[in-house]
């Protein structure tokens, strides 16, 4: 069984640009969670999608958005990039036993 995949591995953008990050969950899993891991700030919950709908979002501005496709893969979009958006973005899912699992992450660098 393939694990969670994320692309790209690294992404370099300049301030003001838009970034698009992609995630594919484990086959058969319908939920996708997005987290931001910025240096020194731990993991911050961003978004939760399930069955194609946004179920919850963290305390992030509206320029952080996303969607989930019919095949349950997901996209995270960050508009009007700021320097402080530089971080590792993790996506993953959750088992029926409440355990979260994660992909390898996308390292976003904003210059």
């Amino acid at each position, binding site marked *: 069984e393939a694990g969670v995949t994320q692309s790209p591995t690294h992404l370099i953008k300049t301030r003001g640009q838009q970034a698009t990050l992609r995630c594919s969950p484990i086959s058969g899993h319908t939920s996708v969670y997005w987290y931001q891991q910025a240096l020194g*700030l731990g*993991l911050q*919950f961003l978004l*939760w999608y399930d069955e194609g709908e946004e*179920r*919850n979002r963290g305390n992030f501005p509206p320029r952080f958005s996303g969607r989930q496709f019919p095949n349950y893969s997901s996209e995270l979009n960050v508009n009007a990039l700021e320097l402080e958006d530089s971080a590792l973005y993790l996506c993953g899912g959750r088992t029926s036993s*409440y355990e*979260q699992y*994660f992909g390898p992450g996308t390292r976003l660098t904003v210059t």
Partner: protein
Amino acid sequence: AQSVAQPEDQVNVAEGNPLTVKCTYSVSGNPYLFWYVQYPNRGLQFLLKYITGDNLVKGSYGFEAEFNKSQTSFHLKKPSALVSDSALYFCAAEGYSSASKIIFGSGTRLSIRP
């Protein structure tokens, strides 16, 4: 506001000694509690959880955690540390409503010296 606190940014322990990584939470109700570990270049992995029942839960790699409701704590422990335990550890809490957010602590870097 709900939160998870890991008061120590770094914990240093000699190999073979017991280790404790502290976590306290402020989440309404009876949250589910978790520990995750992030090894360099190996991503973030589930370690153990408390849902209900026995206050001492056992997880992977010989780790265990003690749930204390009165102190709202969920400290991670291991009787004898290994150098390979050196990693970044995150405590997390989740309320069990359908719209609950999962709240992570800021992480504690555990360093085990030979």
